[in-house]
């Protein structure tokens, strides 16, 4: 078993999906902490709070986000995060963002080709498939 474990954050407005993905993540035994946010704004708020409270210790290394969410969608969230990273070096602790969405629209996917923070674009699928993908990403990250 790989010894190192990863802190992750899931951003999704669907509480049931969050439950599912948390279970899947837990069962990989590759994650130490799971933070959940229900939309982009909520995620930004939580990240800022982590910075205020104890520097970058709490920050997730990998962030999974949905795209279609109310209040602040995934596109705006990722833009905001990149913008914030340019002025706040501690946010470099967030190493990668994985888009985890049910949108298989190539137009959506194409919007992330130009920047390096988003490393994967995953389309939501059955739990067993998602578990495989999640394991792959976590292992790739820890190796």
């Amino acid at each position, binding site marked *: 078993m790989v010894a190192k474990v990863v802190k992750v954050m899931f951003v999704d407005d*669907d509480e049931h999906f969050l439950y599912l993905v948390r279970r899947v993540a837990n069962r990989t035994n590759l994650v130490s902490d799971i933070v959940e946010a229900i939309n982009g704004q909520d995620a930004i708020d939580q990240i800022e709070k982590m910075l205020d409270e104890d520097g970058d210790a709490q920050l997730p290394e990998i962030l999974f986000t949905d795209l279609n969410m109310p209040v602040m969608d995934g596109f705006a969230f990722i833009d905001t995060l990149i913008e914030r990273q340019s002025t706040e070096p501690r946010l470099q602790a967030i190493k990668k963002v994985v888009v985890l969405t049910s949108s298989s629209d190539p137009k959506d996917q194409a919007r992330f080709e130009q920047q390096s923070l988003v490393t994967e674009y995953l389309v939501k699928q059955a*739990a067993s498939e998602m578990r495989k993908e999640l394991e792959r990403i976590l292992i790739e990250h820890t190796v």
Partner: protein
Amino acid sequence: MSTLFKQIFENSPVAMILVGPDSRIELVNRDAENLFGYDPGELAGQPIEVLIPQSVRPNHPKLVQSYFDAPIPRQMGRGRDLFGTKKDGSQFPVEVGLNPIQADGRTLVLSSIIDLTQRVAERERFSSAFEAAPNGMLMINSQGTIVLTNQRIEQMFGYTKNELADQPIETLVPEEFRAHHPGFIKNFISDPKPRAMGIGRELFGQRKDGSKFPVEIGLQPMKTNDELFVISSIVDITHRRQSDIALQEKTEELKEFAYRTSHDLKTPLITIAGLAECVREDIIDAQYDEAQENTQKINAVASQLRSLVEMMLTLTKTDLQSEEASAFDFQGFVDNFLIKYGHHIEEKNVRFESAFSHSGDFIVQAARLTQALENLIANAVKYSDPDKAERFVVMRSFSDLSDFFIHIQDNGLGIPEDQHDNVFGMFNRFHETSVQGAGLGLYMVRRHVDKMGGAISFSSGPEGTTFYLRFPLNRPIATASGPAAQRSQGTVDEASPPR
């Protein structure tokens, strides 16, 4: 007169009459007698005036006299339409050639008469077909001068027939293309075949007022005697353009809808499958409480999915729904709304009021308006602001001579400013509490209002949201029954109907 001449004269296939200076018919051949419907011998000695219309008879002897004063071969009545009169009084179009001849020392006039009945009938057939064509029709000569137009051309371009006659065809061509146009005509004349004009290009006509409109033009050469004419058939395709664009927009919208629909249906299905997997694991792990919770979640997601499908069906019907307009029963609407949504209103502790101060009946597709208003009011209730001391939703109506207005005002959460452009789009949700909403409600409201010929707008801020519906009244309201009484439902507790 020689016998030979007489024989030639008599047997000529052309109707001929020999007239003396006193206007009397000296000689007439068989063909002329037939043409005018006389028996042999009947016409000789008669004044020539018997063969012309009554109206021109009095002046005719003078004309005959002046011809004898200067007798040269020529056509009679150049530029005028000439008519002959038959024995039975009927008239027919003719062409008359005049030739002076010398016989027995006297000057006589030999007139040859051609019956134009057939030719005139053909010309009339042509021009009535030209006139009756559903398209604009115009004919130019090989120099590009307009020689004939029909009424559709007048309507299309805003010129009268007289204004267009003898004008260069470029009058109707937009300024920017005029310089090249004579070259196009030359090309066509050099190889005249029926074809469409400007294939692959967008063509425009220019009206008298300078405005331009898209046209489709078919070209047809027509050869008469030695001259080549070009007939153009012109169709104003403004409407076709517009419906093409509308169709394109509709197609885009349908694509978007299909894409979004499949997306929104897929997500809950994945969740259901995932939760079912969890239940299986929970049972294996003997986590029965967890399993039970997860089956409840499956139920919840399944019922969300069901209402989403219902919403989509409703939306599809929105477009197809056809309904006779009738007077809208405002109070009846409020009563029904309270039956349907009373518990929501109660749950959110919202005060719902209505104030109807319109005059006369509002004639509208009642089911459409009901669906639109229900959506707006239910939304206002759903997104009421729990942090405000009192929550209210007010429905108001009023009217003037030209429009009918309905306003739905609330003091709820308000729509975030950065979402204001998307309010009536598909699949938009503005609040995190609205997870179960499909984001189709306001889109459907807009579609309904569109179909009723109305307009919808809104203003929104932290103090709340107001939706403004405006419907133009096509006719003045016949009977003004005065402002309806102000009604207030008070709090729902007092006013909610028995359940």
